């Protein structure tokens, strides 16, 4: 059975939004090697998003294209986790902006790629053979993303007083947003019912173990999390997504059908 289009868009939007955030480091990396690494992670994510948007566009039919899905949908149509649209720095209110914080970027990549190795591993066995083919490729890439991020979480956590404090602050800022992983959306439920996806709640114990393993080595303390659960995958986003999309979609919307 085929996965519903909304589920493909959820996976694609996750990848494209994080790809855009990671790409903000291009030319600004803390060291040259990390500038290259983040750009390469970003390329993988945008590549995964393209494969998923192409598949979604083919299933929508008509004049749908990958570009229309990425550039001509508005913020409330996006189905990504709120976690992935947050800026590359800690919490601030309103229009306030801050310098990029590499610990925040790394911690987010770690929490997300720890989930995605499990999700892609499960989707590789999806009854939807076209989705399974994308999952098989994406899994290979997500493993390297996790490896990269986990290495830096350990270096930061078990590093200097400053790097430890910033990694701990990033973890405390971001971990509450991961609660959204474990509350299935209607699109996820429909994909599970079609045999095209796995119930994400069954992955939680493995994710907890992956995260705990790295945090222990990093000497970081996992905070207690409770309270509001974000709903980005239902289309209810933070204000940050609109700014991100304004930058990402601006050129395509200023020159519709432009080719260069």
């Amino acid at each position, binding site marked *: 059975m085929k996965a519903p289009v909304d589920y493909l868009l959820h996976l694609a939007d996750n990848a494209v939004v994080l790809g855009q955030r990671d790409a903000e480091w291009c030319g600004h990396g803390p060291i040259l090697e990390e500038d290259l690494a983040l750009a390469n992670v970003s390329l*993988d994510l945008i590549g995964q998003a393209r494969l998923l948007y192409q598949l979604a566009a083919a299933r929508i039919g008509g004049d749908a294209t990958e570009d229309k899905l990425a550039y001509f949908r508005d913020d409330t149509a996006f189905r990504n986790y709120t976690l992935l649209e947050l800026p590359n720095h800690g919490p601030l209110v309103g229009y306030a902006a801050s310098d990029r914080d590499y610990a925040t970027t790394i911690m987010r990549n770690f929490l997300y790629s720890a989930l995605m190795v499990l999700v892609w591993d499960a989707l590789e066995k999806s009854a939807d053979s076209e989705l399974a083919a994308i999952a*098989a490729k994406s899994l*290979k890439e997500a*493993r390297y993303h*996790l*490896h990269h991020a986990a*290495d830096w979480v350990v270096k930061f956590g078990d590093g200097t007083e400053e790097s430890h404090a910033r990694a701990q602050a990033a973890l405390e800022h971001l971990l509450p947003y991961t609660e959204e992983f474990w509350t299935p959306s209607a699109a996820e439920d429909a994909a599970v019912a079609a045999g095209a996806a796995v119930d994400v709640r069954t992955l939680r114990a493995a994710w907890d173990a992956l995260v705990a393993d790295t945090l222990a080595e990093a000497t970081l303390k996992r905070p207690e999390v409770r309270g509001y659960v974000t709903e980005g995958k239902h289309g209810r986003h933070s204000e940050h997504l609109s700014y991100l999309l304004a930058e990402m979609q601006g050129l395509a919307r200023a020159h519709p059908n432009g080719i260069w």
Partner: protein
Amino acid sequence: MSSNVDKVWASLEHLTDPEIPVVTLRELGILRDVRETADGLEVVITPTYSGCPAMGQIEDDVRASLEQAGIAARVITQLAPAWTTDWMSDEAKEKLRKYGIAPPHQTPKDVSVMKFVRRAPEVVACPQCGSTHTVVTSQFGSTACKALYKCLDCQEPFDYFKPY
């Protein structure tokens, strides 16, 4: 019938990777298949990394070579089975090493997702002096498919083509 297929293979044999000009697309496993169908000839290519910017160039190169040889064939991109560095021949790996890129190890079979993070770093031999006294500088090098290493004996930095 098969002579048409052979002609296509022959017309594409010289095509090399845009980033690594010492290995051919066929040796890398990107050029997967040439087949004759009811609708005509088909050339099957498979992408490497999802976001590899060289894939567009590779597809253009394949089309241009077919056109130059006067062959009408469709180019089809096929995702499954997913491309793997295990498809590289030993000869291709040796060419990489001579070019200064440490070739990929075999991908481990049945890698458990859970074990991945904590696995020991791979021992990668320096393509210049052969020493295994090397350290990883960065897990992503000039392209997503390569990691940066440094040899602690001959001091040369080098690329390692990562298992995929």
